[in-house]
């Protein structure tokens, strides 16, 4: 069976069903609707592998990346949003801010935005 993530990262596959989403807007929604524990679990599992993951990804071109590595990249992109909760606020949503709210990214960065 082919693995969903590149060699050496298969232990992170358990995070794909929830955290591998195509756009920044959806990453914000995933982080904002996950519990603090789920955010923290993801953060604690990915951060120690972050440099290793980026070193792996450095070998590919932005617009020419195999799908297993693209999944790994999307986990790293999700990590940046989760880091807002873990590193900035110490809670899921910024203090005193409404969630859900109507703010939407209607045109994102390309690709994976």
């Amino acid at each position, binding site marked *: 069976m082919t693995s969903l993530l590149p060699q050496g990262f298969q232990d992170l596959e358990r995070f794909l069903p929830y955290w591998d989403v195509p756009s920044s807007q959806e990453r914000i929604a995933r982080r904002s609707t996950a519990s603090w524990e789920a955010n923290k679990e993801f953060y604690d599992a990915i951060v120690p592998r972050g440099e290793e993951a980026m070193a792996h990804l450095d070998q590919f071109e932005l617009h020419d990346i195999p799908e297993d590595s693209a999944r790994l990249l999307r986990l790293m992109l999700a990590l*940046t949003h989760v880091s807002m909760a873990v590193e900035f606020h110490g809670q899921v949503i910024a203090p005193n801010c409404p969630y859900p709210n109507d703010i*939407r990214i209607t045109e994102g*960065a390309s690709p994976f935005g």
Partner: protein
Amino acid sequence: MNVATPVTVAAGMMTGLMSTEPYTSPEYFQLERERIFRRCWLVLCRVEEIPSPRDFVLKDVEICHAQFVVARQKDGSIRAFHNVCAHRGNRVVLRRKGNAPAFVCNYHSWSYGIDGALRAATDRESFFDIDEKKCGLRNVATDVWNGFVFVNLEREPSVSLKEFLGAMGERMDGIYFPFASTPLVMEATLESNWKTVADAFSEGYHVTSIHPQTIGESVVSEGNRWSHPDAFRFEGPHHSFSLSGNLNYVPPPRTVEQMTTAHMKGGDTEGMLSTTGNVFAASDMDEINRFMDHPQVNPLKSPSYVNDLTMVFPNFHFDFSPGGFWTHQFWPISPTRTRWESRWYVPPARTLRERFQQEHYIARLAEIMLEDIGNTERVQLGMQSGALDGIRLQDNEAIIRHQLIQVDKWVQAASVAEALAE
């Protein structure tokens, strides 16, 4: 007061309470529609949104119940017209943007050229006395300044765009706007008056309270705890200020933040990116330098430059920072409802690592916008409560006061000339 001559006083403004009525009153909103939005030049888009001949984009001006087709002509010029069929008023163009040789109304198939002229009315011979020349999509006065496309809803604009922009337009002319083809767009419809939303982006006083983790430490410094802006300018109905930050800022030991910002070090402008820019994940320094070279970008040449804000009256902010520019626009829908649209012009990522770094910037930006925007509905409710005799604006909120004074001046003025008079 701890300064010799407050900015507010130097600009000739009174210092008392400001009424909440303009933020809440339906009658006032009607006047804003007729006297401001139907008479001022309004920004609709940038020229880069429609780069090629026959490119078009739809833009809404809800307060005037209007929707415009902005279209690049075959000769490269830009025109705008009401998206209203000359037959019975149907919306002709239904796609939000695209490239089209012609527009065909879906109701009875009347067709129009990219210049808005009627090409053909179907079943022509059954009509009475139609003059095809009068059956084009109705033109709206259009002009371009610094790459921003403006329209004016007066049939015959009382003043040219150049006159309307006045001293601000001259001072800011010729700025190079980097990465203008690649905006990141954020939008929200908010239960707030349009001025309440604009106010959220019009002072630095809130930074330490509202943005403690996201940008507070990089902007707020020992010597400027409440982020007092500098270089205030009041030019006709428009205004600007500049904000400096904390030169001694060191990013805290946050793992992901450091992974995504560690590359932002180096000389001059790049040094600013690491200290106060905060946001630039992928960049092209040639583009940035071309932009920063203009004397009105960081006009004080502050070493801890954060940003310059300019309001183009009535509802458009453009902001500069060491990493480029962004815009906010505040479109009134009702006295207590506003469409906010923000465009962040970001360099396209060139590598996967830059894309990763950029996502951290986007994530932080979304946090900052939520912190700013998340407060406006509470402020609006407070102003509607009747609890206040008026709002209390301090000296560093001078541009909020200036906006309220200018809004009222336009609302009272019988003519545009009177509204623009000294």
